[in-house]
């Protein structure tokens, strides 16, 4: 399940004083709702502000309130009102508190659902009283009577709210002796989603998400009462580009991702904070990996970028990292196209020797807007040394009006800010082509791109004296390269990107690179040192800070300023 966003600190104009578990606290009178509009602060929000978590299933800060799970019922007391509509006071002048009880049975509490009940002045909230506990126990018992004992095979086990709350708030034993309701299992809801209706607690988060956030009203509840089940219309598929968010939202194991289904238990996985690279939105993600294998991406909350969501396409775009045709060796080819595998020391040395013979102006560099700012900075140092013509390869696709951008490069704005690419990405490529064919350009350095895809055919490449290629996956250009340097996927290194809106965000290393592949910034720095005699910083944060200091666009921000949510720059 996705973490629920911690609300940004709001400096309230008006506050309300309430008592939470006996201590007086001031909370803002209004708090943003799921769309960011101010609404009267609810008990749940108020308690969260003072660090008291109230268990809940149906409530989600990014979805409209439903109030159906009743898990967040808490005992509340309100100031008693006299006949004159004024609060009755105790002898010491404090308002007299009347606890909520059932009008027909004052021995039982009348709970208030924390997710929808606004706080009122002098309200007393009991998140931990016996009555609150009793109500929670009752709800959990109800939820569990028809829930299957599937934890052993359920993918949600380990991150399941039903498991967690049962341990925390439930009873060890249920009195239930009847036959459980059986509902459809292994329901094929769509191409990426599998539904198990027996596990569903009918919180309707998935329905609300797809209706109100993804604007595809594809899910509903069919049947009635205890037999209620979540379903898509028979014969139609739940297949919009945001379906997998419902898996994160599902507090139990009812909705599971087909991609992740029965692949790995969640408690084995390491979580790494990273950025999705499938388009220029730069959705914040958590990478789940175990023993150098990536199992899943999950969105990470960032209100400035992707709220709590990400698209399915981006989420499932990680498998290439483990592809068989990953480049794993440093290769040097002689003019007979015979290649030899060498160590990094050798290739850097021989390459720098060759490069130092290059004349200024005879070098072209095609970098990638999928490279990190730090790498592009080092490439820029090389380019400046050779007075080289540079550009990046544009990548366009379809966008939507929610999260997906049509620019499929994650770092276009970084490439522009650093000066490798220009407002129209790829505008220099014809120039480079022309330079090569006219013999002005003798050396081509290509970083992270298959240049044959942008029209550089064999005939053109044959005119070059020197072709240096660094890439992650094998390609035709890689086969032609005089020097081939294996690169790293973003999951295998650290770095930063600048997204579509100019937010600088960093990504961390989740897995080790295969074979000889190593983080590009490391060998790029070695190359820069050898070729230019400059000494860029030798740590990644150092490189970032250096780049930022030398580049007006970044305004001197420091690596540590990025935090986990990034920071905005002017673009």
């Amino acid at each position: 399940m996705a973490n629920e966003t911690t609300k940004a600190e709001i400096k309230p104009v008006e506050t309300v004083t309430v008592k939470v578990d006996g201590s007086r606290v001031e909370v803002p009178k209004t708090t943003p709702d799921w769309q960011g509009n101010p609404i009267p602060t609810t008990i749940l929000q108020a308690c969260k502000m003072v660090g008291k978590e109230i268990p809940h299933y149906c409530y989600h800060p990014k979805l409209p309130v439903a109030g159906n799970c009743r898990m967040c019922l808490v005992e509340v007391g309100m100031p008693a009102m006299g006949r004159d509509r004024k609060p009755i006071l105790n002898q010491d002048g404090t308002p007299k508190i009347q606890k909520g009880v059932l009008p027909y049975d004052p021995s039982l509490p009348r709970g208030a659902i924390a997710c929808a009940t606004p706080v009122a002045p002098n309200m007393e909230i009991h998140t931990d009283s016996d009555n609150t506990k009793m109500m929670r126990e009752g709800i959990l018992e109800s939820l569990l009577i028809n829930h299957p004992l599937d934890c052993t095979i359920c993918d949600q086990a380990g991150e399941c709210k039903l498991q967690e709350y049962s341990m925390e708030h439930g009873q060890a034993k249920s009195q239930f002796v009847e036959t459980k309701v059986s509902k459809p299992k292994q329901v094929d809801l769509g191409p990426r989603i599998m539904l198990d209706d027996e596990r569903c607690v009918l919180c309707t988060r998935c329905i609300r998400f797809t209706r109100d956030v993804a604007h595809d009203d594809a899910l509903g509840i069919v049947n009635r009462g205890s037999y209620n089940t979540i379903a898509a219309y028979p014969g139609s598929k739940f297949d919009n580009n945001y379906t997998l968010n419902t898996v994160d939202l599902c507090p139990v194991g009812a909705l599971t991702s087909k991609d992740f289904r029965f692949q790995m238990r969640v408690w084995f996985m390491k979580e790494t904070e990273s950025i999705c690279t499938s388009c220029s939105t730069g959705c914040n993600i958590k990478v789940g990996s175990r023993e150098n294998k990536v199992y899943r991406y999950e969105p990470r909350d960032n209100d400035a970028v992707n709220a709590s969501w990400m698209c399915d396409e981006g989420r499932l775009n990680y498998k290439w990292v483990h592809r068989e045709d990953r480049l794993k060796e440093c290769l040097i080819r002689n003019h007979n196209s015979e290649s030899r595998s060498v160590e990094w020391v050798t290739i850097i040395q021989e390459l720098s020797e060759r490069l130092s013979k290059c004349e200024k102006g005879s070098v072209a560099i095609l970098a990638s807007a999928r490279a990190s700012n730090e790498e592009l900075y080092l490439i820029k140092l090389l380019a400046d040394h050779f007075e080289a013509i540079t550009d990046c390869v544009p990548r366009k696709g379809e966008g939507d009006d929610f999260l997906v951008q049509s620019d499929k490069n994650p770092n276009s704005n970084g490439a522009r800010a650093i000066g490798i690419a220009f407002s129209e990405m790829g505008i220099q490529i014809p120039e480079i082509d022309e330079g090569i064919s006219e013999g002005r350009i003798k050396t081509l350095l290509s970083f992270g791109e298959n240049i044959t895809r942008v029209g550089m055919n064999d005939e053109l490449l044959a005119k070059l004296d020197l072709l240096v290629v660094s890439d992650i996956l094998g390609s035709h250009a890689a086969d032609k390269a005089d020097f081939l340097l294996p690169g790293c996927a973003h999951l295998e290194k650290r770095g930063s990107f600048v997204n579509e809106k100019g937010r600088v965000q960093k990504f961390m290393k989740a897995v080790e690179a295969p074979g000889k592949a190593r983080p590009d910034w490391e060998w790029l720095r070695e190359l820069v040192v050898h070729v230019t005699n400059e000494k860029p910083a030798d740590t990644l944060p150092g490189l970032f800070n250096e780049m930022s200091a030398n580049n007006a666009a970044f305004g001197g921000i420091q690596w540590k300023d990025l935090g986990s949510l990034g920071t905005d720059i002017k673009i």
Partner: protein
Amino acid sequence: MPKEFRLILKNADKPGYTPDIDCYMANGGYEALKKSIALKAKETDDGKTKTPQEQIRDEVMSSGLRGRGGAGFSCGLKWSFVDRRSGKPIYMICNADESEPGTFKDRQIIHKDPHQLVEGMIISAFANDVHLAYIYIRGEFPEGARILNKALDEAREKGFLGKDVLGTGYDLEIHVHRGAGAYICGEETGLIESLEGKRAYPRIKPPYFPAVLGLYMCPTIVNNVETLCAVGHIMNMGGSEYAKLGTPRNTGTRIVSLSGMVKKPGYYEIEVGKATIGELIFDDAFGGGLLEGRTLKAIIPGGSSAKVLKAGEKFQMKRPNKDGELESVEVDLLDLPYDFDSLMAAGTMSGSSAIIVMDDSVDIVEALANVSAFYAHESCGQCTPCREGSLWMSKALNRMTSGKGRKEDADYLTHIATNIQGRTICAFGEACSWPVLSFVKKFKDEFEARGAADEAAQLESNQKGAVNSAN
């Protein structure tokens, strides 16, 4: 001598009385509407002007009319909550989704005297500046829907409805909307959702109080059929005159639906509180007593969701003595006046004023199993305690009635029901748990005896089985 007092059903059963508008008008119909709509703005003593609408609302307030649907909430007060400053249209819905088992009063009004409802509705709509109103009638009343549609057409033809009602410039349209077999549509927010074309899931309150955020998120008034009919009579008689009917705080008349094991089941209109439960069951003017040779066992006083009352039960009631001071007196079940407050004091409710009588031939466990099956079937399943608990109770009772009871089942049922009441979105939680709680509490011996007998029988058959297999 207690007897019926017919106000709403004054004409319904008269020989030759038809649901036509002509017949209705020949019996004084639509006079209250004409009177109401002709009201002029009036200056009050403190110099403010009261619009005709405000005057009608004042009359309803002073009549003390309480909602006839179940909760018995003051109608005037309900109208006073309506948000009239939002700038949004105000809607009115007549709740004709009569679904509480035991109740069949609205059916009589709709089938026999539909114009009375139409007139009451037009006055109420006028009083609340409503221009679009609906009658939500339960799906099982296809004939009622047809009759109402015809009545509305007739009213439209006569100019009581539609554009420019009676030449006053006031527009009102009323449509009939049919339900399709869901008890939960009787809950006003469930009804609103249903009318919006959704599953009848009651809304959470706060924030969705119908008076502020009702139909299409606009202020909405939802009133029962009988309540709206009463409004017509209030305008005819004047609020204070109407308030003289019945007893203080329990004014007017009510139609009592009497069913179960009595000689003369049926509907009886009484002045509220002017007949006791005993009279309603035994008096010849009403139920006429139990069947031959039977004794009273229990009654459900306000539709099947009300807590059951056991024959011979005694209640402590506050009654004014001859000096006018309140004094506690013991009242037998049969001497309970049939009104809102007395039944509430007795720990139950008059609900939709439907009395179900059970005599000594009734198996109490079977009766509760029947009621529970109804509620398990009707739970909308939106919120957890009721969705899971209602079927759980029904399954347990079903097990008990099929010979697999246990001694601890009485406590088991109480445990389940306690977990539901007061924790749900709407009052259905109470509706499904109250019968269980009250039946089990008041007839615990029967539940335990049945469980014990089943356990003994089970043990015996197990032993037999063991002996047989040993042989």
